[in-house]
């Protein structure tokens, strides 16, 4: 066995994976696509940087990270890696699962607390039921894990230069990119918002948005919502919904207005520092995961709260 291989198409996430892996194994090899990524990753203190390069110039589809699944699986197999850690992105999830299928090995999705056990086996935790439970799994032999962004600081070892190896590989061109467009308006970045005001179905009449917007303005917060508000009511764009299949936020302050608190939603703000719920129903499930449960009508509470916040400036 030759240590841990890490891969992400996002060099910053790859550098975080180097930190995670370095705590678990002496040898950490980082696999990347393209010379630019390689330049960043040589300064992470990794044992080596392996660049996968599409064989033949101008190969169609070579820009898709998913095109390198077979190459990555072959590398892990040939080098007898202990573990492949893949950054948990849309591309990373697919790549990890397909590599695991090719290697016929275990996959632990969004693994945390990864541990090398004394007997050579491994252990990791994963969340289940949208954060309602935590499952611990163990395995022996090569496996694939995905690791979410933000679990570790990006490795940076000033002055270090890892050796770089470029490998020409065949790429999978069966899926062809026709076009790619950015769908988020400039300035909307829920994931890095320091404060979030979230609209739930209890406050989802069109006129209510102004109320939420005013509180967000007072708090210098981003407006977010639950999935039904975006998808069923269409009141806000889908990139503004928080939840297991939507945005995951890490704010200092989350304020839920008329949010009932289904687990598929609450998992999306689990890392918030302080959680406030405002709901007319004292039995709203959201109140079980709140620091402050304000029982009352948001129409009445929110303008007073906005005024009180402004008065403190």
């Amino acid at each position, binding site marked *: 066995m030759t240590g841990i291989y890490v891969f992400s198409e996002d060099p910053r996430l790859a550098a975080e994976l180097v930190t995670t892996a370095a705590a678990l194994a002496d040898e950490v090899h980082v696999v990347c696509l393209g010379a630019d990524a390689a330049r960043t990753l040589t300064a992470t203190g990794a044992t080596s940087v392996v660049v996968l390069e599409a064989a033949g110039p101008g190969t169609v589809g070579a820009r898709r990270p*998913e095109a390198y*699944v077979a190459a990555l699986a072959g590398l892990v197999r040939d080098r007898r890696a202990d573990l492949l850690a893949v950054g948990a*992105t*849309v*591309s990373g*999830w697919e790549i990890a*699962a*397909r590599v*695991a*299928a*090719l290697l*016929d*090995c*275990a*996959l*632990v*999705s969004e693994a945390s607390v990864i541990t090398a056990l004394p007997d050579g086996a491994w252990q990791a935790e994963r969340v*289940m*039921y*949208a*954060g*309602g*439970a*935590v*499952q*611990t*799994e*163990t*395995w022996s032999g090569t*496996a694939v894990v*995905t690791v979410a962004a933000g679990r570790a600081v990006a490795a940076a070892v000033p002055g270090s230069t890892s050796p770089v190896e470029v490998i020409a590989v065949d790429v999978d061109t069966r*899926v*062809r*990119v026709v076009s*790619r467009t*950015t*769908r988020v308006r400039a300035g909307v970045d829920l994931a890095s918002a320091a404060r979030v005001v979230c609209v739930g179905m209890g406050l989802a009449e069109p006129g209510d948005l102004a109320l939420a917007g005013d509180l967000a303005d007072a708090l210098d917060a981003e407006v977010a919502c639950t*999935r039904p508000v975006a998808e069923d009511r269409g009141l806000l764009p889908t*990139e503004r919904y928080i939840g*297991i*299949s939507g945005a995951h936020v890490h704010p200092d*302050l989350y304020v839920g207005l008329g949010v009932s608190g289904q*687990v*598929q939603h609450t998992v999306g703000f689990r890392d918030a520092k*302080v959680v*406030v719920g405002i709901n007319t129903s004292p039995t709203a*499930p959201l109140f079980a*995961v*709140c*620091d*402050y*449960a*304000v*029982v*009352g009508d948001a129409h*009445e*509470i929110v303008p*007073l*709260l906005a005024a*009180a916040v402004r008065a403190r400036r």
Partner: protein
Amino acid sequence: MCFKWVAAEGELRVDPVTRAVDASRARRKISDYDRNTIEAARVVAGSMGGELVGLTFGGPDARTGLKDALSRGVDRAVHVVADEGARADGHVTAHVLAAQVRRLDDVDLVLCTEGASDTYAHETGPRLGELLGWPVVTNVRELTVEGRTLRAVRVVGVDLETVECDLPALVTVVPEVAPAPIPGLRSVLGAAKKPSEQVPVADLGLPAAEVTARTTVTSFLGYVAARRRVVLADGDAQDKVDALVAGLAQDGVL
């Protein structure tokens, strides 16, 4: 399309002290997002003039889910019955589903949901596609088929990526791909007349290594949120706001 029969997550009971999870009283249901997937699959199968087969792998109790899937628009349901108490991980599930898909004739397209409401592992779909040797397109929110070409719009981070590939293909979809209408009475009654089939997993003749989980679960504990749960219910609205603002100021978040 593939669907999963899961415990209703809202009905799991967690012991606040031991964190033990009691799922025995939780109702079972078709994983929420699979309902959107059934609808998307119904529409695309209709456009292709094809039959929609709903496929699930699960314990004997998953049989109850077949009727629900049929009433939601599946033309025929196949339930590969897992041995009672046997644990399946993504490795096992993908091998079982791949074996069953190969037993069906002329499958052009398999739809899975990006994640199930219990595990949400983004795993089964792409694993299945890889085992079938088909192109895989994940995280899709729009899809159409023209002739032998699939065109799909993927949500990739903040981008929308439009891709094409030839059939057969495996696609995983996100809930916005289609609404999940509640079946009407006529659909529910019609479901009883549609064919469904149960296949014991042993009938697939898979080698033991393919039906043995690659991981072992050593602990399964409920998550208990470490929140303060300060309830502000007394007094008028202004009293509650004053108490809230004082608390938030003390927490250093205002």
